[in-house]
C-alpha cells in the first residue's frame, strides 16, 4: 500500500518550522518597540528641540486651565465614550483621577466620534468624546450638547526613514496628495513613486487635513486609506515611497516626521512649536457634555483641564491646551 503521500503535509510543515528556527526568527519585519519611549511615546530623538512642557504655566485662557488639581471625593460611575483618538487621553486622565478619588469608577470606551455624540445625545453615556466638531444634523437632533476643548492634536506628515526629503511646504504636501507630483524627485527626493496614505473619509484627522492642507481639493484616486493612526504609521514604516499623516504621539524611530515650511522656514512638529502657533497644522479634540456638567463629570473635566491633567495630555503625545 502506497501511503507515503500521507505524511507530506507534516513533512512540509516540519521543514518550514526548521527553516524558521535556522534563520533565527527573521520572519517578521516588525520593528522593535522603542523601550525608552514606552511610557512617553513622544520620542525626543525624533522630534528635536522639544521640551516636555513649555517652561512656565502659560498665562492664557484662565477659564480653561484651572488650578484645582486635587479631585474631590465624589462617588459614582462615569461613562465616557466616543472617538478612539481621544480615548488614550480620557483613559489616562481617568486612571490618574481614580488614583486620587478612590470612590469614582470612570469607564472609557471607544467606537468613534459619532458613537460618542449619539451616546451623549441619547443619554447612554455621561461624557462623549469627539475628534471632530458636532455636525449640524447632530445639533438639530440633540440640542444642548456642550463641546469642551480638552487638548490639541498635531497632524504630522511622515515618510519612510530612508526618504531623503525632510521638509515640505503645505503646497508640496498637497501636490503629493492630489496627484500633481508623480515622483518624489519633484520635491527634492529620489525617483520613486509617492504612495499616499490617507485616513478614512470620516476621520476627524482627514476632515481637518482636507480643509487645512488640501483646501478641499480632490485626493488622487489611488490614495490608500487606513482607519487608524497605528495602521498609517505601520504602512509608512514599511513602504519606502510612502507619505502619511498621524498624530504627534505616533512618531517614533520607525518613521520620519516632515518639517513644514511656515513663514519661509521649516518648522519641526513638537509640542513647543504647536503651542507657539509656528507649526501650521493642528486641531482641537473635544469632550461633550449635555448642558453644563455637574458632579463627578464636572470634577473629572476640571481635572483634565487642570495643570496636572494637561501634563497627562502631553505625556500621551498630544498637545496640551496652553
Amino acid at each position, binding site marked *: 500500500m502506497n501511503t507515503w503521500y500521507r505524511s507530506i*503535509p507534516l513533512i512540509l510543515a516540519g521543514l*518550514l518550522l526548521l527553516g*524558521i528556527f535556522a534563520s533565527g526568527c527573521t520572519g517578521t*519585519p516588525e520593528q522593535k518597540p522603542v523601550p525608552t519611549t514606552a511610557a512617553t511615546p513622544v520620542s525626543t530623538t525624533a522630534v528635536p528641540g522639544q521640551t516636555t512642557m513649555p517652561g512656565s504655566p502659560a498665562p492664557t485662557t484662565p477659564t480653561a486651565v484651572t488650578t484645582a488639581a486635587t479631585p474631590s471625593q465624589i462617588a459614582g460611575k462615569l461613562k465616557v465614550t466616543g472617538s478612539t483618538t481621544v480615548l488614550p487621553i480620557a483613559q489616562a486622565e481617568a486612571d490618574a483621577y481614580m488614583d486620587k478619588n478612590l470612590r469614582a469608577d470612570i469607564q472609557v470606551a471607544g467606537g468613534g466620534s459619532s458613537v460618542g455624540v449619539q451616546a451623549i445625545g441619547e443619554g447612554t453615556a455621561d461624557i462623549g468624546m469627539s475628534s471632530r466638531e458636532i455636525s449640524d444634523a447632530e445639533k438639530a437632533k440633540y440640542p444642548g450638547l456642550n463641546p469642551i476643548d480638552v487638548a490639541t492634536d498635531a497632524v504630522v506628515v511622515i515618510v519612510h526613514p530612508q526618504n531623503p526629503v525632510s521638509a515640505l511646504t503645505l503646497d508640496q504636501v498637497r501636490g503629493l496628495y492630489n496627484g500633481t507630483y508623480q515622483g518624489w524627485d519633484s520635491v527634492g527626493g529620489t525617483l520613486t513613486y509617492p504612495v499616499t496614505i490617507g485616513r478614512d473619509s470620516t476621520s476627524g484627522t482627514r476632515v481637518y487635513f482636507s480643509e487645512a492642507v488640501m483646501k478641499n481639493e480632490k485626493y488622487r484616486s489611488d490614495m490608500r486609506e487606513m482607519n487608524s493612526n497605528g495602521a498609517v504609521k505601520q504602512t509608512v514604516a514599511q513602504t519606502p515611497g510612502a507619505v502619511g499623516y498621524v498624530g504627534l504621539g505616533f512618531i517614533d524611530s520607525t518613521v520620519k516626521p516632515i518639517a513644514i515650511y511656515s513663514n519661509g522656514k521649516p518648522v519641526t512638529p513638537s509640542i513647543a512649536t504647536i503651542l507657539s502657533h509656528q507649526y501650521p497644522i493642528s486641531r482641537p479634540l473635544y469632550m461633550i457634555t449635555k448642558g453644563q456638567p455637574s458632579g463627578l463629570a464636572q470634577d473629572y473635566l476640571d481635572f483634565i483641564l487642570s495643570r496636572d491633567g494637561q501634563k497627562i495630555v502631553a505625556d500621551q503625545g498630544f498637545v496640551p491646551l496652553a
Partner: protein
Amino acid sequence: MNGPLEPAPLPALESPGGPATCPPPSGPAQPGGLPFPRAYGKEQAIHGLLFLASTVAIVSVLFILAYIFSQALPIFPVAGVWEFLTGAEWNPTGVPPLYGTLALVVGTILVTLGAMVIAIPLSLGCAIFTAEIASSRVEGILKPAIELLAGIPSVVYGFFGLVILTEALRVTFDLASGLTWLAGSILLAIMTLPTITSVSEDALRAVPRELREGSLALGATKWQTVSRVVVPSALSGITAAVILGIGRAVGETMAVLMVCGNAAIIPSPIWNVFSPIRTLTATLGIETGEVAAGSDHYAALFGVALLLLVITLLVNMAAAWIIGRIQGGQVPAAPRQEGGAAPPWRRAAGAVGGIATAARRPAAVLLGCLAILAVDLALGHGAALAVLGAVTAYYLLKPRISPGITERFAFFLMAVATGIVLIVLGVILWDIIVHGLPAISWEFLTGYPRNLGRGGGIYPAIVGTLYLVAGAMLLALPVGICAAIYLVEYNREGRLVRLVRTGVDLLNGTPSIVFGLFGFAFLVIALDLGVSLIAGQVTLALMVLPTIIRTTEEALKSVPQGLREGSLALGATKWQTVSRVVVPPAMPGVLTGAILAVGRAAGETAPIMFTAVVFSQRFLPSSLLDPVMALPYHLYILATNVPGATTNQYGTALVLLTLVVGIYSIAIILRSHFRRTVRW
C-alpha cells in the same frame, strides 16, 4: 462480491435501534408511547418549543433585515437609486457628496472572487485529504489545526496581513505598495479556509459507507471512489460550505480593510491584482464609527450594507441553481424529508453509477478554471499557460494513464494543499507566539491594565471575553439548534423553509459591524440597556445564529432517511426519533458549527465595540448591565490607538488564541466522543 446491501443495513439498525425501542422517559415501561396522552402531550410541548425557537430565530433574522432596510431608505431619494448603484465615485465627504457604489461593488466581487479562487481548491484538497486519505492519527492533528485557523481573531489576521503579507508582496513583486487586491484575496482565502474545509469535510464524512463500499467493490480505485462517488454525493454540503465561506469573505471587515489599500477605484485593467481596491465592508468598517447618525452619509452606509445583502442573495440563488443542475442526474446521498413523495428526478435516478456522470463535468470544469485563474494570479500568465497545456495533455493522454498513477498524482496534490494550509497556520502561530510570549507573566494574566494597557495585565479582559462568549452561546446554541431541528425534521421542504434559509444565509453574509450598529441602535439605545454585558451577548448571539442554524441543518440532513423510518417503524414517537436517532449521529456536525461560532464570537471586535466594552476596568462586572473589557477590543485599541504597546498587543493576541483553543479542545473532545459512539 461484498455486496453493499448485505452488511450495511445491519449496523444501521443496530445502533439506533437500541435506544429507539426504549420506553419513553415519561411513561414507565411502556414500549412505543404514541397512544398515551401523557407522551402525546410531551410531543406537543416539544413541538411547540421547537416552533417557538425557530420563530424567535426567524423573527430576529427578519427584524435585522428590516432594520437595515429602514435605515438605508433615506439615501435613495437623496442620491437617486440609479446614481447610487452605478456612480463610479464614492466621496461622501466631498462637496457635493458623491454616493456612487460601483467601484465598491466591483471591489467586493473581485476580492471575494480572488479569495475563492485560492481558497476553494486548497480547502477541498485539505478536506478530502483529511476525510478520505489521512490516517486517523494524522486526521487527529489536521482537523483541530484547521479549526484553529478559524479561532484566530480577524484583528490578528489584519495585522498579520499588514505587517507580513503586504510586505512580502511588495518585496516579491517589486511594487510601490503591498496594499493591494491580491493581499486582500490571500488574507480572505486564509480566513475562509477553515470554514470551507471543516464544513465540507463533515459533508464528505457523512456520505454513507455503502456508497464507498459499493464503488470499491465494483473495482474502482480509491481516487475514483472519492472523485466520482463521495464528492458528488457530498456536493450539497460542499456547496453549503462554499456559501458559508463566501458569506464570511463578503462580510469580513476588520482584516480586509487593513490590507486592501481602500482606494475606491476599479482596477485598470480589471485583472490588475496589484491595484488597491475597496470593498463594501471596508467602507462600512472605516466610515461607520465616525459618521454622524441620521446624516445622508449614515443612510448611504446602510445602503452599502443593503447592497451586501443583495450580493449575498445573488450568490445563494446562483448556488441553488448550480445545485439544482448538479442534482438533476444524481441520487441524493441523504434523501431529505419523510412524508412527501420524492420528486420525479430523484426516483428516476437509480443506480450508484448514475452519480458520476452528471455531477463530474461541471464541477471539474469549474474547479479547473478556478485553479488556472489561481495560478495566473499567483505566478503570471506563462505559468497559467503551462498548467493549461499540462491539463490538456493530461486529457489527451488520459486513456493511456493507469488509474493508479492518476490516484497517486491526485493524492499528492491533496497532500500539497493540506501542507500549504498547515504552513500558513504555522507562520501565523509562530508570529503570534514569538512576539507574544515575552509579554506573558503571572501579572499579565491576573493583573489589571495600567498606563493604557502598555503595562499591567489583562485579567478583566479575559473574564469579560469568557462572559461574552458564554452568554452568546447560551442564547444562540439552544435557539439555533432547535430552530434547525424544527426546520429540517418538523417542516416540509417548502417555500417557507427556503425563504427562511435564504434569510439565514443573508444574515450570514452580513458584516459583523452591521450587527454592532443594530445592537447599538436597538439594544443599547432603544431598549435602554446601555453599553452592557447583556447587550454584547445578545449582539454576538444574533451574529453567530446563522452559522449555527446552517451547520446544524446540514448535519441533520446528512443523517440517512432510513434511520428515521426505521425508528418510526419500530413505534418510536417523532421526538424519540429525533432525539435518539437523528441528533446523536448529527452531533459532530452540530459541534463543528458551534466551534466555528465560538471562534467567531470570541474574536470579533465590531459587534461588541459599540455595545458592550470599555477599554479599561478596575473592577470586574457585577451584573449583566455592567460593561466589560474584552480581548479582541483591547487588542484593537492597543494596535491602532496606543503607541508603544506592541508587546502587550501580541501578548493579548496570544492569550485570546489560547483561550479559543481551550474552548475548542473541549468541543473537539466531545466531538470525537460522539464520533466514536455513533456510526452507521
